[in-house]
């Protein structure tokens, strides 16, 4: 029993370290990729090709003063960054990176990931409220309204693959795609999921909560130093989570010919991460009413219709 716990802890630590490294190098990749898309070089001075840039950023954030403004609601202000970061990292507990690399192979994997992404909203709302600042309040309201709106569409689009696989276990969903990846029969759901995933993580073109040109970063404007870094970490970890979920639900997870499963999983996940960067370099920001219209008046009806058609077709085929 004790041995099993120690073994699990080691696995967890390895995954957490990988996630942190991934997050650090995602910030590097973001600056580098977008730089090249805009015909710039991106970071070049820190280390060879700027490869030490994430390390320098981390050190800088660590040595920055941790400010707690006078007007804030202290307990809530201190708890909020944890609620922003912990769900993003803890969601990796159920992600099957390869047939035998999964920390907790539970039956409700999909629901667990969705539940954690809902908990993340609390961190945003709490930080906005506790900061007692106009920008933070506005940013947190926008952010949570956006996240909950797109969460509905996301949940409805995930139902397609769940229906086809007949399971909520992420590993079983992956195994069900041995013959045919779900993004072919569930293409509509795949598109809806991709759009909602970008909106869920508050990324461009849906980055209204941050909107640096009008809201000066939104809900975490009063945070500095490591507390700010925790929000940042949570956001990027969430990007990895939605990318992993996309790879698992629609792109066949770790299945694929020739290459080892882990490599296939990483390829699919990183391809989706690249899609995030590409979007940010290509599209301008939406207006808030356009954003809410897209979520409520376009994605949700389409997702419902897709679910109805899928269930009828699946029933017709299986009987």
């Amino acid at each position, binding site marked *: 029993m004790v041995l099993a716990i120690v073994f699990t802890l080691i696995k967890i630590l390895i995954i957490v370290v990988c996630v942190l490294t991934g997050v650090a190098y995602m910030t590097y990749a973001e600056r580098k990729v977008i730089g090249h898309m805009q015909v710039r070089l991106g970071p070049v001075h820190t280390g060879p090709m700027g490869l030490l840039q994430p390390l320098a950023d981390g050190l800088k954030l660590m040595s920055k003063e941790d400010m707690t403004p006078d007007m804030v609601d202290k307990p809530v202000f201190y708890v909020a960054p944890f609620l922003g*970061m912990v769900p993003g990292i803890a969601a990796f507990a159920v992600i099957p990176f390869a047939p035998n690399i999964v920390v907790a192979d539970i039956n409700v994997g999909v629901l667990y990931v969705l539940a954690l992404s809902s908990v993340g909203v609390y961190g945003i709302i709490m930080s906005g409220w506790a900061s007692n600042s106009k920008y933070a309040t506005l940013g947190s309201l926008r952010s949570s309204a956006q996240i909950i709106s797109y969460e509905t569409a996301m949940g409805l689009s995930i139902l397609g693959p769940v229906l086809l696989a007949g399971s909520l276990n992420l590993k079983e969903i992956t195994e069900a795609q041995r013959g045919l990846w779900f993004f072919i029969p569930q293409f509509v759901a795949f598109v809806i999921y991709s759009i909602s995933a970008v909106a869920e993580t508050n990324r461009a073109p849906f980055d209204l909560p941050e909107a640096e040109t009008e809201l000066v970063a939104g809900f975490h404007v009063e945070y500095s130093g490591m507390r700010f870094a925790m929000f940042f970490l949570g956001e990027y970890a969430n990007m990895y989570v939605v990318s992993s979920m996309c790879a698992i639900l629609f792109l066949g997870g770790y299945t694929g010919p020739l290459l080892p499963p882990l490599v296939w999983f990483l390829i699919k996940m990183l391809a989706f991460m690249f899609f995030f960067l590409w979007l940010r370099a290509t599209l301008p920001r939406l207006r808030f009413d356009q954003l809410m219209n897209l979520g409520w*008046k376009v994605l949700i009806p389409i997702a419902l219709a897709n679910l109805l058609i899928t269930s009828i077709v699946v029933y017709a085929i299986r009987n």
Partner: protein
Amino acid sequence: MSGYLPIVLFLIVAGGLGVVVMFVGAIVRPAKYEKVKFSVYECGMPSLDENRKRLNLRFYIIAMLFVIFDVETVFLYPWAVSFDMIGLFGLIEMILFIVILVFGYFYAWQKGALEWA
């Protein structure tokens, strides 16, 4: 339940990570109090009036609609998992459920609950 122990451990490790980075930060970072620096941020000006103002009602309506539709989605999950077992009855039952909700959805749309202009 043993499958859920790793999840508890994972949550503890993730929370512990936050504590550790805060602790390490506390050792190396400066901490110098100044009245102006610690005032509420408002583009360099003294804050004009109350910071927690009245909020737009639309956010509240969206939150209510979210509760309805998210609970609906959660109801659909067990149905999707046991789809093969419940057969035609389950299919028709769920179509009725969705149709009723779609009526509510169009009612909300008609009432302007989804308008932001």
